[in-house]
């Protein structure tokens, strides 16, 4: 064996030993060896290791995260699971009442959670409470308004929803593919409140949506609509907001968002525990962690998308740049000029979905 070969073999052996050492460390530190497991159905912002790992280490638990988009998908997953499979549920604030009514959610200990620290308009007790019992807590919120590229469009124009229905920005508009906030925004454009949407006003909304489609270059869910804004495929994202541009602003400072003069839509996501969970205590500890100022700050600036932390105390942990991106100091005004999502009954919800399908097919 030549010196070179020996040296090479020794080097390889050292590398193998080092790799084995690193691997064993990885295995030892892996949450796979944690004593307990918690199963959570979450939005993508909860899959950031920077958010989850501190909880896993503190409680010696492995949190298994299943990411989903759309409450319908989540309910389909739950339907196909065994009772007890899931412990924690991140759910669109607008869907809490129907899911709670279906008996899927466990009561949360209101006195053990920082409800009073949450921005008052975001507490939404009428949504999260049922018969005096709390079933969910709002954890993060933001706005479905108008996101845009200020290098391509006039920011002053973006304050008026009506301009999106003119020829000025034809084929430069992407529409966020979520029927409730978008129909709410159309209602605002038409001079209605979101709560004015009914079977009688739906034809007006439908006509306005069809006109909007004629000006739009695409309609896309979270990933494709934000990709369109990032790649220049679209210069305006109707329904966008801090959630669409905050993560991208570091790369493209021209991306911005505005609450139009007609008002904006307040989105909110909430945290709940499944009624059939066999680890309710641990699940509630997870809820407490996410709602703590530390958990809130991490959730707000998750690598997937940013949003305003529901707990005001998280503000102390955000950097000035993060606060600027989230418009932390403007929240009082933004909240005052925003409407909550309109929550239709089952029949109207079906009609709205039909109109939205027609809009996509138009």
């Amino acid at each position, binding site marked *: 064996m030549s010196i070179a070969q020996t040296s090479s073999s020794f080097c390889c052996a050292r590398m193998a030993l080092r790799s084995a050492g690193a691997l064993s460390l990885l295995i030892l530190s892996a949450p796979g060896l944690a004593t307990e497991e918690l199963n959570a159905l979450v939005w993508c912002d909860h899959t950031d290791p920077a958010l989850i790992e501190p909880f896993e280490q503190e409680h010696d638990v492995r949190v298994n995260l299943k990411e989903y988009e759309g409450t*319908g*998908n989540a309910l*389909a997953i739950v339907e196909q699971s065994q009772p007890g499979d899931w412990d924690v549920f991140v759910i669109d604030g607008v869907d809490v009442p129907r899911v709670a009514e279906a008996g899927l959610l466990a009561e949360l200990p209101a006195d053990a959670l920082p409800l009073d620290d949450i921005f008052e308009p975001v507490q939404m007790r009428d949504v999260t409470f049922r018969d005096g019992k709390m079933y969910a807590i709002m954890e993060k919120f933001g706005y479905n308004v108008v996101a845009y590229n200020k290098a391509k469009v006039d920011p002053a124009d973006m304050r008026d929803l009506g301009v999106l229905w003119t020829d000025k920005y034809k084929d430069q508009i992407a529409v966020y593919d979520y029927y409730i906030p978008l129909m709410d925004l159309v209602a605002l454009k038409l001079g209605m409140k979101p709560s004015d949407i009914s079977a009688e006003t739906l034809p007006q909304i439908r006509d306005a949506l069809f006109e909007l489609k004629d000006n739009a270059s*695409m309609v896309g869910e979270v990933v494709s609509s934000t*990709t369109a804004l990032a790649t220049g*495929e679209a210069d305006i994202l109707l329904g966008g907001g801090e959630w669409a541009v905050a993560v991208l602003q570091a790369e493209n400072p021209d991306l911005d968002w505005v609450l139009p003069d007609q008002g904006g839509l307040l989105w909110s996501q909430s945290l709940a525990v499944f009624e059939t969970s066999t680890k309710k205590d641990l699940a509630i500890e997870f809820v407490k962690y996410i709602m703590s100022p530390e958990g809130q700050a991490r959730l707000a600036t998750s690598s997937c998308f940013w949003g305003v932390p529901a707990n005001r105390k998280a503000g102390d942990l955000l950097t000035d740049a993060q606060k600027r991106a989230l418009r932390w100091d403007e929240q009082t005004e933004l909240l005052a000029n925003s409407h909550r999502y309109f929550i239709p009954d*089952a029949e109207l919800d079906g009609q709205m979905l039909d109109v939205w399908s027609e809009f*996509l*097919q138009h």
Partner: protein
Amino acid sequence: MMANRRLAWGLLLPALLWTLTFFAAPLVIMGMYSLWQRVGMKLVQTWTTHNYQQFASKSFLLESLVNSLEVTATVTVISILLAYPLAYILAERVPARWQRLALVMAILPFWTSYVVRSYSWLLVLSEGGILSNFLMDIGLIAEPMSFANNRGATVVGFVHFFVMLLTLTIYASLVQLPPSYRKAAADLGAGPIRSFIHVVLPLTLPGVMVGAFLTFVLCIGDYITPQILGGNQELLLPQTIMMQISRRSDFPMASALAMILMAVVSLAYLACARWLKLDRL
């Protein structure tokens, strides 16, 4: 005789069990679901044709089927027109020792993820993408243009995939054709074009049809490509099926639409089998 029969059943059993477990049983369950109904958050398990009536009465559902058929027909025709010459060149013009390498190169894009391939096309076709920049460089367009988020982009994404598939099936038919057939045609006075039209093409048509049928089945049931490249400018049937699940949790309606899709595919198969005698293959 009895022993042979038992052996035959024994050999058949694994395939039979596989088909029953993973095809027949799910199909029956899906058929049952399609005859139930979702009311609010509840699944009502009483027999009804409500979902099929909804399909017939709601224009956007019918349109999604029409869109799917139009896109699938376009993709199939374009793919055949591109794949046949490619397969012909591979089988007839490329030297035998290079054919394997040429085939590998032709199917190389198969090795990348379907989703990655679709997103790659988005980068090619989007405003400021490769195609737009190229057309600007050669002076055909003055400003960046988008070619994505429409039916054309969906068709391009599909064709890229299915040309490879069709090339393989057509190539397999071409190389099986004995050279003596063309020599005989030439001896009888047929030129290359006449020989191709009257000898080569009819004899390779089953290969074309197998590829076309696979293209039809895979294309009409695909959700990813129209979702990524179509920009939701129109809905195809698989997208409508997904919408029933993701937005409404309406498995019965999704099942009814899937059964309709299944019926369309079955009709396509029957047409191929009847008129083109696929059993000869």
